[in-house]
């Protein structure tokens, strides 16, 4: 339970948003050439980090736009918010 600063609407309660999981998982450019291992990696394997995690959120009960959040999963503190397509402001 926390506040998320939507880049389009400003600060709103987390319940207005839906989490889309880990960010920056690139969709395979040549899906037909992927091996089973590569498919498993893309579809199922996750970093599931305890600490600073990059993730996607959707302001589902607001502007309905997707964006990225940098959050510390060990204390739910949000370190940065940035739009889709932008580079992460934190390494």
């Amino acid at each position, binding site marked *: *339970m926390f506040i998320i600063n939507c880049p389009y609407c400003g600060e709103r309660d*987390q*319940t207005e948003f*839906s*989490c889309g*999981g880990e960010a920056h998982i690139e969709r395979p450019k040549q899906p037909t050439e992927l091996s*089973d*291992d590569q*498919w*498993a*990696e893309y*579809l*199922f*394997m*996750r*970093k*599931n*980090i*305890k600490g600073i*995690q990059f*993730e996607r959120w959707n302001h589902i009960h607001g502007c309905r736009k997707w964006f990225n959040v940098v*959050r510390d*999963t*060990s*204390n*739910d503190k949000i370190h940065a918010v940035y739009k889709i397509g932008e580079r992460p402001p934190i390494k």
Partner: protein
Amino acid sequence: MKNKYSIFSLIKNALSGHENWQRAWRDPEPKKEYDAIIIGGGGHGLATAYYLSKKHKMTNIAVVEKGWIGGGNTGRNTTIIRSNYLWDASAGLYDHALKIWEGLSQELNYNVMFSQRGVMNLAHNLQDVRDLKRRTHANRLNGIDAVWLNTEEVKKFCPIINTSQNIRYPVLGGTLQRRAGTARHDAVAWGYARGADEMGVDIIQNCEVKGIKRNGNTVEGIETTKGFIKTKKIGVVAAGHSSVIANMAGIRLPLESKPLQALVSEPVKPIIDTVVMSNAVHAYVSQSDKGELVIGAGTDSYVSYTQKGSHNIVEETLRAILELYPIFSRMKMLRQWGGIVDICPDASPIISKTQVKGLYFNCGWGTGGFKATPGSGDLFAHTIANDEPHKLNAAFNLNRFVSGDLVDEHGAAAVAH
């Protein structure tokens, strides 16, 4: 040798003011080397150590736990035990556990308070009815007791349920597994710890794993807050922190860790003598022997290791509880807590070897691991001792995410993921 617990030992110790009870387990310092190390001193980890020493005669083993035993999800769950899962593989796995539960107190000489009070799963829409009837048939084909109850039979079995057809999600029926029930979760951890300790297993508490040492593709030992411990076999049973350990070993897992909440009410006189679960409205409730209502809520939708969980999740659950049980409307909730559950994409666990020699994972139990504790320990011990899975956990390998042989149990997992 442990003294046997009995009515006589109880009387004897009562007369001496309960000051002479034997320690249930030692508190040893880690040795330099073990034949196998289990990471995680919850129910599953302790059960694994117990069966490794009992059935596979591996006694030079240790369980390392970063906190105290049973202080994680083992002591945080809602203690429900059942085996009414849909697929053959799951039915085999969970019913194996249920069969061990039935004799566990005697086997461990420790009262785990296993109570076969029945578990009822409610249906609130036509798809629920179809799915639950299908699951009942599948259960019976697998030799698992399951019956379908219509609305009147549900009301008869648990009279405090509101079966009015005028509520938002009316009760259209439900399934009942009579062999299912509950157990005292702390006692399970303590009983297995005592049993494992008796056979020589070192249970090392307050010992956090900081790293896994590999030599090429083989494990060599673990770095801990109490120093380096050498071993050839590592069994990881770290629940919500499985991915953290996997990261230390340099392997990837298909898990996401999320807070799952539960809460208990003030204690009241006996009012509900079974366990009732409702998947669709997300409310499940039973009553502890102390009289508290034990209520399970849902998971948060995002990854978090905070062991808290959000208020809106609790609100949603209590809203559903109140519609189904108007009689609880003036009860006060005493405590609320969260535990971190590691969820697999197919809502089934992983009990498996990995690509690293000597490294085994037992994880991904998600929201429903407690019920499987004895079976999980037994099968994981078999997997570690033989370096091959038992036929009952062969389907729950890590490779299923590559081969596509998923065991989709979202319907039977009860807590929506």
